[in-house]
Structure formats: C-alpha cells, structure tokens
C-alpha cells in the first residue's frame, strides 16, 4: 500500500536502503512475522483461515478507532475519550430504539442518531481544543468522564437486547466468506491511508504536528483541520459502537472502557511519534494486527488474558525504546 511517507526521515542523508530497513513499519513487520511464526509453532489452531478471520472480527472496533487516532497523534494531539464515545453511542442506539423506551425509533433512525451523536461528541472535543485552547489530553480526559457518565446516566445500568435479526449481519455475518465488519475496516483503512498520504489535507496534518505556528503562517487552516479530525474520531467511535452492539447483541454502559489505551498502543506501536509529525496508517494497521494476534496466539498457547496484557505492555515499551535508539543512531550518522 502506498500509504507510508515520512517527511522527516526522507530528509535524512543516509542511504535509501538503510532508510527503508530502519523504518518503524519494516521493523514492526519483521516482529509481526516473527511473532506469527512462533505462535504458529506453539499452537496448530493459530494459523488457520477461520481463526485469522475470526480475529479480524475482534480487532475491527480497535482498528476503526485507531485510524483517526493516527491522524490526531500525528498533529501532536491525543483523544482519550474514544472509548467513552463508543459507550454513549451504544447506549443511545439502544435507548432510541428500545421498543419499551421513550423514543421507539426505527432501528435505522436510531443508528443514524447514534452516529450523529458520536460525531457531535468529537466535534465538542475539537471546538474546546481549538477555540478555548485547552490541551487535548485534558479536554479528552474531561470528556472521557463526561461521555461515560452520560452513558451510565442514560442507561441507569440497564441493558437493551432483542434486536431484529438483520441487525446482526454487520457484527456476526459474513460477506464473500469474510466477516462483514472486516470489509468496513478495510474500506476505512484504504480511505484514511489515501487521505493521509495523497491529499493536501493529510500532508497538512504532518505540518501541524511538526510546527503548528509555521503551518498556520503558511496558510493551512490548522484550527478547522483539527476540528475535522476530532469530529471524525467521534464518528468512527460511533461506527465502532454500531459494530460492537451488533457483534455482542446487547448494549451496556461500560462498553469500550479502556479502548482508548488499546488504540493509542496500536498507533504508537505502529511508529507514530506521540509528539506528532511522523506516522502512517500502514504502521497503525500493523500495530493493531500485531496486538490482536499476540492476544489470540498467547491465549491459544495457554497464557491467560491477563498474562497477555503484560506482554502487550512490555512490547509497547520495548518497541518505543528500540525506535528511540534507532532514531538516535540515524540522527547521529
């Protein structure tokens, strides 16, 4: 895929070959292959088509949220509220539709309301960050509490079940032998990869992350672009909520708790600098695939879910350490 461009690294003077080899994506891809080989050796259930496809089902929600997160982190921002937006969108979807609730909308309308709400939540984040100047970390920390609180307040800890059969096609069905939601994820991966690497908008995000003031002085509407990516992040959290509800057939207010950490881990693991200015969609995709395959492979190898979390945390820190080390070597050379 033609999605990886590193404005910073390309400027460096070392030979093209070492440049390619030392890219975070390439290193990560090698780690991915190594991990897959080791996991395949430890369990013969791991490298089967049905298992891999099933893992695709499970990683879609994290993937959908990690894509706009890549945009946001490239601009030097962060969005901690994505898991809470997912929660409130899921709750509102069920609440609007609930045949014994106050609204009783058709399910299609409830889905639209839920997606609109997600976008609105993200828009609010963007407006506060851009117009009031509150740092993204603090803004989205506040809305993390606020949106989760709305989900809990609206639901009063009651779940909504009993959706019609067609609704489950997205989260549990297949199209051409592949889980439906995986098509959705692939679609958004391609769209976001093209936007980031081939459009003025996408390239501007790098400029904002490298030097926001400079970007503004060269005519980039930095405020507008930032608002757009936070709203997009909210919309994608809404998409993830829709798929999540369809996959697990119920709504609960704690849905998506901790999703932000998984998404950030995937993005950072994928080579996007937390300080902004560098990163790519390809890296993020390898990041979330690696995390999901590690989770799955380790659990097949008999490691508990909690043991898996330890491995992922360690991998995250090690990946950044190695990346920092390599960056310093290349900068010194």
């Amino acid at each position, binding site marked *: 895929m033609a999605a990886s461009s590193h404005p910073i690294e390309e400027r460096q003077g070392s030979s093209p070959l070492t440049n390619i080899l030392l890219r975070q994506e390439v290193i990560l891809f090698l780690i991915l292959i190594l991990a897959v080989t080791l996991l395949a050796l430890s369990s013969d259930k791991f490298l089967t088509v049905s298992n891999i496809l099933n893992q695709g089902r499970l990683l879609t929600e994290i993937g959908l949220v990690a894509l706009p997160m890549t945009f946001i982190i490239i601009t030097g921002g962060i969005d901690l509220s994505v898991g809470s937006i997912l929660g409130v969108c899921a709750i509102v979807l069920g609440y609007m539709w609930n045949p014994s609730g106050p609204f009783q909308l058709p399910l299609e309308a409830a889905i639209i309301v839920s997606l609109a709400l997600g976008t609105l939540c993200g828009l609010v984040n963007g407006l506060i960050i851009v117009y009031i100047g509150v740092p993204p970390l603090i803004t989205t920390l506040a809305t993390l509490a*606020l949106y989760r609180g709305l989900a809990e307040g609206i639901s009063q800890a009651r779940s909504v079940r009993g959706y019609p059969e067609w609704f489950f096609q997205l989260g549990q069905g297949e199209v051409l032998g592949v889980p439906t939601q995986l098509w959705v994820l692939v679609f958004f991966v391609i769209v976001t990869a093209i936007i980031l690497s081939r459009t003025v908008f996408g390239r501007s995000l790098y400029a904002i992350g490298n030097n926001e003031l400079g970007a503004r002085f060269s005519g980039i509407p930095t405020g507008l672009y930032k608002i757009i990516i936070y709203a997009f992040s909210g919309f994608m959290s809404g998409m993830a909520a829709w798929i999540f509800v369809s996959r697990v057939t119920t709504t609960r207010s704690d849905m998506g708790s901790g999703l932000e950490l998984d998404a950030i881990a995937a993005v*950072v693991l994928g080579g996007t600098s937390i300080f902004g200015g560098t990163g790519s969609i390809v890296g993020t995709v390898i990041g979330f695939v690696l995390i999901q395959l590690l989770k799955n492979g380790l659990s097949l190898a008999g490691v508990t879910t909690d043991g898996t979390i330890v491995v992922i945390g360690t991998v995250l820190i090690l990946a*950044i*350490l190695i990346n920092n080390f390599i960056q310093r070597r290349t900068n010194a050379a």
Partner: protein
Amino acid sequence: MTATAKPVPTPARRDDTGNFVSRLISIVSSQEIILLFVLIALLASVGSANPRYVAERNFINIFNGNAYIAVAAIGMTMVIISRNIDISVGSLIGVLGTISGTLAINGSPIWVSWLVPILVGALVGAAIGFMVAYLRIPSIVVTLGLLSILKGGLITVTSGEWITDLPEGFFLAQMKTPAFSILGLSIPAIPSPIIIMFVLTLIAVLWMRYSQTGRAIYAVGGNAEAARLSGISEKRILMTVFILNGVFVGIAAVLWATQLSIIQSTVPPGLELQIITAAVVGGVSILGGVGTAFGAMIAAILLSAINSALVFIDISPYWFRAVVGILILVTVLADMLRRRRTAAASGD
C-alpha cells in the same frame, strides 16, 4: 529566580504590588479559594435540604472517603507540574495494596507490611523516572505500558482472589483519634486517613514552595530550557518527582488496602482518572508549571462530597461521572480564561 530558596508567595504568578484591587482579585480568583467556596456552598445547600448530609457521621465520611485519592494526588500534582503524566497510578495502588495484604497474612510485622509497599512504590517510580528522564520515552507511553503490565501481572499472580483474615492492627485506615471534649466543645473521633492527608499535604505544599528542589519542579515544568540554563538538572528533578510520586502512591495504597476487612487483589477501575481529576481540578495548571497540593486535596474532598450529595438529594449515582466531567471542564475553562486575563492585563 525560582531556583532559589527565597519564599515566593504564589508559584509563578505575577506580583501585583501596590494595586490593592488587582491583588484582591488575584487572591479571590485563586483556584484553591474558588474550590473551597464551591465545597462550602455544596455542603451548605445540600445540608439545608437534607441535614443528615452534614451530620457528623456523613461529614467525616466525606473527608475520609477520598483521603487516599488526595494523598496520591499530591504525587500526581508534582508529576503534572513537571509537564508529565502518570496513568499507571491506579494499577500501582492495586499492586501495592495487594503486596501489603499478602505480607500481613504471611506473618510479617505490621509495620513491614505498611513500609514495603511504599518502598516498592518508590522503586517503580524510579524506574518510570529513569525511562522518562534518561531514555527520553514520553511519560504517557511509559505509564501506558506499565498500566498494562501491572494490571495484567496482578491478576495473573493472584487470580483476583480476595485477601481475607488480615491480622488485627493491620487496618491503618480504620484507626481513629479518641473523641474528647474541650471547653464544652465535643471533638469527634477523627479517622487516621484524614490526619495523614492533612499532614502530608501540608508538608508537600511547604516543600514545594520553599525548598530548592521543590521550586525547581515548577521551573522545569514552566520552562525547561530556562531551568537548564539556570543550572537545574532536569533529569535529576524528574527522577525526584517520579520517586516521590511512587512514595505517595505507596502511602495511598496502604490506606486503600487497610480501609476494609478484605483486599480485592484487583485494580480499582478508573482510579487513575479520579487521581488525575483531583490534581487538575485542584488547580494544577494544565500547561505545567503552576499548582499546589492543597488544591488537589480540596478537589479530592469535593469529588467525595459530590458523590455523597447525589445520594442525599436523590439523584442516581450513575450520573456521578457526568458531573465529574462537567466539573473538570468548568475548572479548566476558568483556568484558561484567567490566563487570558492575566496575559491581557500584563500586556503580553
């Protein structure tokens, strides 16, 4: 300069000498004072609607309930002032609390089971500090990874089993001062967490304001380059900050572990968020360089008061987090507006 031990009235705030009015405004609009007013207003209004809210027992519970959060928020205050963040504190409290309980049921002397978690906390803090200061990994990434490691590691080791049969004398957080009366005034029994919270906050505020190292934290967070040029070692300060943060988290963990007769050896969900919230709402500037532990303590008590108030005015506790979110937003907005006004007034 901030690096000297000379007493400075309020950290990093302009001194409006001679102008009584602007001085008064700067005192009144100080975040800690505002929070104190909000707290008193809340206690008074809910108390008048339902007197049981401010009756002795509930009143003490409000102060007692979040004392361990206030203690952890002291460390978080320092971390945020130095322009860093630690999102692993909730998991660390779970781990250290479990260590404390495990030591106690295996026959260690009580003081050992209180001291070891604090030392381990300092060690973990040193590890974080090393990675942030020397290996230059952003603190959010380090603590994000550590959060997973601690959380997963804890449940893997303990399988989430509760620790019961804790020895008598272990329950530090349940101890109280004796009630007594003086001059016809009856002083109720004060639970130890309240005393620990007040004493530690007082020490931290004085240390941060008057000691050379304490001042240096503000300098590093306010302007790292200027701090470096004035001879402050940023690396050493960051190490100090994270080690101290580990110590405060350790103390908070002991208070958390000793408050009930059992210890659920899991990570309390969302705890790090409450601690960060207390620090931020307490007036630790979101842009680094400003803030006090006193504000964080008031904010922790305020959060506890809000939580309790919801019950007494018959609002579902499920709305608690929404109220907290709005509270953070409002205080942050107030902080931004105040900064703009200060900037405009000084002609920047």
